[in-house]
């Protein structure tokens, strides 16, 4: 693009023709398209040879690969005569084209330096990018080999890719056809939900309630919209399918990896070269030109880097495990190893689980440390007069904590009856967060009458039971670690019971303080708990609670039907495949770990779905609804281990003199002294103490921070719970009534240190590390191994762990490879997925971008100031009005 008239003179003179024969815009477009087509063919031809060269490079040095290339090409490509003919024609064409270009170099120069050609090439590049935005691209975007298979290819990806295309395009077209939301299904929030919101806003504040309401609107209209879009895509499936086939044939769903796009960018680069470097340094460095010159140089550097990246980049995931010795021998990978590493432990090109795509790094990696640190969070539950939480758990807001955060809660109308704004009764202020805390123990006692006030008593039996999470199967014979367990006595008249179940399913135990203990034994076996059912019938939600019994048919409103088919007390899935691992023993003998039932849900229109319901999992909260075939029916399981099939049932009861009695279901009564083991078969349970009205405090101690001069944050890898000093202010806005206390908590269940109960103000605080969403951060410390002269693996000394630590946003660089934190799995705590990238284009591309930024800043911000100074006239806007 010739710069005959930019900058200051451009603003005063109109357009001037650039040459004797101006190249028209149409001709420019045609010329650019033609050159791009030539480049496309050239790249297609060259790539077949490039593939052969790359294969040679796996085993040869660069020079050897080059010298053996012709022979290898003859073997690989030219055995097909058509390919040989193609290559011969291509070479001939290249020679003729080169001669032609040289002879008519003046025309070429004029072509590329024409304004219209510059505009045409930028315009075509823009349109190409636009097409890639409007047509869903198949992924992964950095894999040049990925294609859409033929529709009938066995095991192909056609259906999967088409489904993605159908949804994405349908989503777009649906919104285009419903501009401003006209004609979209409306959000009907059930009145019951809105009613609940009112009470919610009293407790948690208007802003929180408002956000909750907005969330509900989004969710309800979102569900309805999703169905409408599905319907739209199904009605238009045929048309969408032919569109998909067309864009696949034209490579329009892999625009950025296509050769025509690379060719177009090459033409762009050539155009920039023609327009940037003429005129010599004197012209380049003129203040009026320098910025523009810099931008174009930067673009060239950037495009060069991009070309390098596109040609040489290899990208994959290296799956590492702490103590990788168990899984992979030595935990490092090398092509000369005899055995193939397990599939998930290789380093793949493009993540394709195929041995041909394996690529090995010139060094080995292993994992020295890995940790996930979650956000410290607080949940506040308000209790009604009977000490029962006011809302379902999934409705409670979760507050992420940081030093100084203040949370106002529990609003009441001002006492003077003025009708002013409600004032908070409670303010929580985070005084300090500690990275590490320990719980030295729990102090238990009877509550005083003053503490209890008018509230109900809570009788509790304190037990000592084996701690399943701390039992190490490799240390059989040693003392079994145990923990305190507080068994709350069942409230009279309530069907809700707190139950301790044996790890080997030999017994179950509940406590009763008041009333006849034997009424607690269920009359009939087989109720597995309750199931909360919400059915959407004609736009209205119908809620009900049904008993879970295997095999019984439950008719729901609207013609829906549920049958509970199967149950397990230990539902677990394979973390890699997601399929269930069945435990293989009868339900009554299964240990209570993660209960679940399988429900067959049938819709009146014949759709049916087999759904796994895990205990206490709220399908809305976990976003499971998206995967349901019958999304109008929502189910939440509340497992009741006391009434389900299982071990022998026992009731523990005691009198006012703390004399405890254990009653079995057969009616046997055994007196138990405090400090004795309860006479039940199964794991040992010691009765420590009984309380008629239980109070306890955890003894929380904060540990000193580990400070190191080099900034290495060892605390991140600590497994200790976090500590919290929280100030609880009652009546924060009323100076006369204001009281405040500071509580210390730790994010652990041990000793209930993470729970604070305030019975007087009827709320419960729960301090925990929030594992529900994204963590605060993942970090890994890597070790690099190389083979020494005798072929043994030795660890390279690369300095302290800090320099080998990787996190998201901070990678580790070694021998041209960049290793960054990319994957983790909640169910595999010792696993860290390391993204590995070999990309020689990065430095050039980044440098190019910096140059473009500098050039643009100079051209548009600095240059006008310089020029204005030069003219001695700051007002650079020409004034034209009379």
């Amino acid at each position: 693009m010739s710069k005959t008239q930019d900058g200051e003179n451009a603003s005063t003179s109109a357009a001037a023709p650039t040459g004797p024969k101006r190249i028209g815009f149409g001709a420019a477009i045609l010329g650019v398209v033609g050159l791009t087509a030539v480049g496309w063919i050239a790249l297609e031809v060259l790539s077949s040879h490039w593939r052969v060269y790359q294969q040679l490079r796996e085993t040869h040095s660069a020079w050897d690969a080059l010298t053996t290339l012709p022979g290898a090409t003859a073997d690989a490509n030219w055995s097909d005569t058509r390919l040989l003919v193609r290559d011969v024609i291509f070479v001939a064409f290249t020679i003729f084209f080169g001669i032609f270009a040289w002879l008519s170099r003046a025309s070429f120069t004029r072509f590329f330096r024409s304004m219209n050609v510059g505009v045409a090439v930028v315009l075509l590049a823009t349109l190409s990018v636009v097409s890639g935005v409007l047509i869903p691209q198949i992924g992964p975007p950095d894999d040049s080999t990925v294609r859409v298979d033929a529709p009938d290819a066995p095991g192909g990806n056609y259906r999967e890719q088409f489904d993605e295309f159908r949804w994405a395009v349908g989503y777009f077209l649906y919104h285009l056809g419903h501009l401003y939301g006209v004609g979209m299904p409306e959000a009907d929030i059930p009145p019951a939900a809105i009613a609940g919101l009112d009470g919610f806003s009293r407790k948690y504040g208007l802003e929180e309630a408002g956000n909750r309401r907005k969330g509900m609107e989004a969710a309800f209209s979102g569900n309805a919209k999703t169905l409408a879009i599905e319907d739209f895509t199904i009605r238009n499936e045929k048309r969408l399918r032919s569109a998909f086939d067309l864009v696949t044939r034209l490579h329009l769903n892999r625009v950025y990896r296509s050769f025509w796009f690379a060719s177009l960018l090459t033409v762009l680069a050539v155009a920039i070269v023609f327009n940037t470097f003429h005129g010599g340094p004197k012209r380049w460095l003129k203040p009026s030109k320098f910025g523009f010159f810099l931008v174009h140089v930067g673009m060239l550097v950037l495009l060069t880097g991009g070309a390098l990246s596109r040609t040489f980049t290899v990208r994959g995931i290296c799956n590492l495990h702490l103590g990788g010795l168990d899984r992979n021998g030595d935990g490092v990978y090398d092509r000369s190893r005899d055995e193939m590493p397990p599939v998930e432990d290789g380093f793949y090109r493009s993540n394709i689980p195929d041995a041909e795509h394996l690529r090995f790094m010139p060094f080995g990696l292993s994992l020295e440390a890995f940790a996930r640190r979650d956000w410290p969070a607080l949940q506040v539950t308000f209790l009604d007069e009977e000490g029962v939480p006011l809302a379902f758990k999934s409705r409670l807001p979760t507050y992420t904590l940081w030093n100084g955060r203040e949370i106002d809660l529990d609003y009441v109308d001002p006492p003077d009856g003025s009708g002013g704004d409600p004032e908070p009764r409670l303010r929580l202020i985070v005084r300090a967060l500690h990275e590490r805390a320990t719980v030295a123990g729990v102090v238990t006692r009877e509550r005083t009458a003053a503490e209890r006030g008018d509230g109900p008593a809570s009788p509790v039996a304190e037990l000592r039971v084996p701690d399943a999470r701390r039992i190490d199967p490799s240390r059989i014979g040693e003392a079994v670690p145990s923990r305190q367990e507080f068994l709350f006595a069942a409230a009279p008249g309530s069907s809700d019971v707190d139950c301790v179940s044996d790890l080997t399913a030999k017994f179950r135990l509940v406590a009763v303080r008041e009333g006849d203990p034997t009424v607690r034994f269920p009359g009939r076996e087989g109720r597995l708990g309750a199931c909360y059912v919400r059915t959407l019938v004609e736009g209205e939600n119908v809620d009900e609670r049904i008993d879970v019994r295997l095999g019984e048919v439950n008719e729901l409103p609207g013609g829906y039907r549920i049958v509970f088919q199967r149950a397990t007390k230990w539902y677990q899935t394979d973390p890699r495949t997601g399929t269930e691992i069945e435990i293989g023993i009868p339900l009554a003998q299964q240990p209570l770990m993660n209960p679940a039932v399988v429900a067959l849900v049938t819709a009146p229109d014949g759709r049916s779905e087999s759904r796994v319901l895990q205990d206490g999992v709220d399908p809305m909260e976990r976003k499971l609804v998206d995967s349901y075939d019958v999304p109008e029916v929502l189910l939440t399981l509340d497992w009741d281990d006391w009434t389900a099939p299982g071990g022998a049932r026992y009731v523990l009861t005691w009198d006012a003199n703390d004399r405890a009695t254990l009653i079995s279901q057969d009616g046997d009564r055994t007196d138990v002294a405090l400090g004795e083991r309860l006479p039940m078969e199964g794991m040992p349970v010691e009765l420590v103490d009984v309380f008629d009205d239980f109070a306890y405090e955890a003894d929380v101690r904060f540990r000193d921070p580990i400070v190191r001069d080099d900034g290495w944050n060892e605390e991140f890898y600590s497994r200790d719970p976090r500590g919290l000093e929280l100030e609880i202010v009652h009546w924060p806005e009323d100076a006369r009534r204001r009281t405040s206390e500071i509580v210390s908590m730790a994010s652990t269940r041990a000793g209930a240190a993470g729970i604070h109960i305030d019975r007087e103000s009827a709320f419960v605080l729960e301090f925990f590390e929030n594992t529900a969403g994204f963590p605060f951060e993942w970090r890994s410390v890597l070790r690099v191994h190389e083979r020494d002269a005798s072929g043994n693996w030795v660890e390279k000394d690369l300095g302290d762990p800090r320099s080998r630590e990787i996190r998201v946003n901070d990678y580790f660089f070694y021998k041209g490879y960049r290793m960054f934190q990319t994957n983790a799995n909640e169910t595999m705590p010792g696993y860290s997925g390391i993204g590995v990238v070999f990309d020689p284009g990065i430095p050039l591309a980044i440098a190019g971008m910096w140059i473009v930024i500098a050039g643009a800043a100079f051209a548009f911000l600095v240059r006008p100031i310089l020029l204005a100074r030069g003219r001695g006239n700051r007002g650079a806007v020409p004034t034209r009005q009379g």
Partner: protein
Amino acid sequence: MQTTALHLPQALVATTGFLDSLDPFGHQLHDSGVLLRWVNIACAIGIPVAVVSGLAHRRAALTGADGTHETVFGRLLRLVLWAACALSLLSVHARWGEVNHFPSQTMSEVLVMFSTALLLSMGVLQLALHLRKAHGHAWATVDDTLVAAVFAGVWATNHYSSSLSTAQRDLPPALQSYWFAPHLSCLIFSYATLSIAALLATVFFALRFWINLRETRFGGTRGGRAVVWAVLAATGGLLLSIRTGASWVPNPSFFWALLALGVVASWLLRAQPAYRSAATLVLTVTWMAFLPFGQFVTLPILMIVGAVVSGMASKSAIPSAERMGALEGTLDSVSFRAFAVGFPFLTAGLFQGAFWAQEAWANYWGWDSKENTALISWLVYVLYVHLRLLGGYRGAKSMGVLVAGALSIFMTFQIFGYLPDSQKSMHRYTDDGVAPREGMQGPSPEASARVETESTSENAR
């Protein structure tokens, strides 16, 4: 189909909602929300001040008064502008404290950043364009008009953003980078500046539309103009009804039919000079109403400019063709200057995203659809520079490209989530209830919407 009357209460409620955005007391809002309402108040004060100041300058310009003297209203206006800017920055600061990170994660946060950037870049542009000091009263009028438009835009944006969820969200690991703040600030500042450049162009197109209209046979008559006004009013009423949730609005394809009609009419009639203006008219009206932000920006501008032109006509002060030509040239230069301030920031913001991606994923350019839409905006402005500086595009032609650039920014910023390729984008942070992907296969975060009714709370009993 129901009658309009039934929906009048709804419209009234919506209007009260708008007035609500001026009430800084009570409502248990967080500090940032309260400050935002003070910003709205400043805007509400600023609009009449700008109008009065603009009218004063216009009168002075018409009487031929010379000089660059500031009026009291001009000083007051600048004071209000900077006060609104400071309040808006304070709101961002308060929000920072309330969420414990740079507040640009949710759409409501990003929109507040945008309205702040609008005020800030208007302040910066006042300095950069030298409209007040160097160019006398006529240009001070343009400046005042721009400031009034910016005030209206900020108020509308704040009103809209407070209808979105203001819930605090933790930053996922990939967003915890020092690039987060500069990347977002540069881009949003450039969006604001380039929007103002496009606003200038829009004002010009609106003016040209009304003046051309009077020269057509149809628009030359009182009745013809009444029809145009009726169409505008109807479109405005329609948009307002939709905004307030009316269900009587016509077929969803209405907008498309209108736009297609305009395109076809202008194409078919382009060769016949008598009808060309009429065709342009249909196209302009439909396009301005059709724009996604038509109800807030283009339609009001069109109506205000129309009213001004009517006023001019009643005093027989319709600008001559030469004056329109001169105006076109100067508005073009001024909008170029606004562009020149915004473009380096757009460039820096775009490439800072690449530097960040390089550190997070060792992939400086992943052809993610958000990256691509941002690149498209950048390329449109690259085309603008080349066309204007080399291709000799001046006046309406080059201002048209600026409007196209603003449209593509709007795509990137607001309707990106609907584009086909954005479904698996890693940049869908701001959408409510969408789990960011950010290259992690870790567990997905909790849904932002937890929907349970009170009855399910029996579970706990």
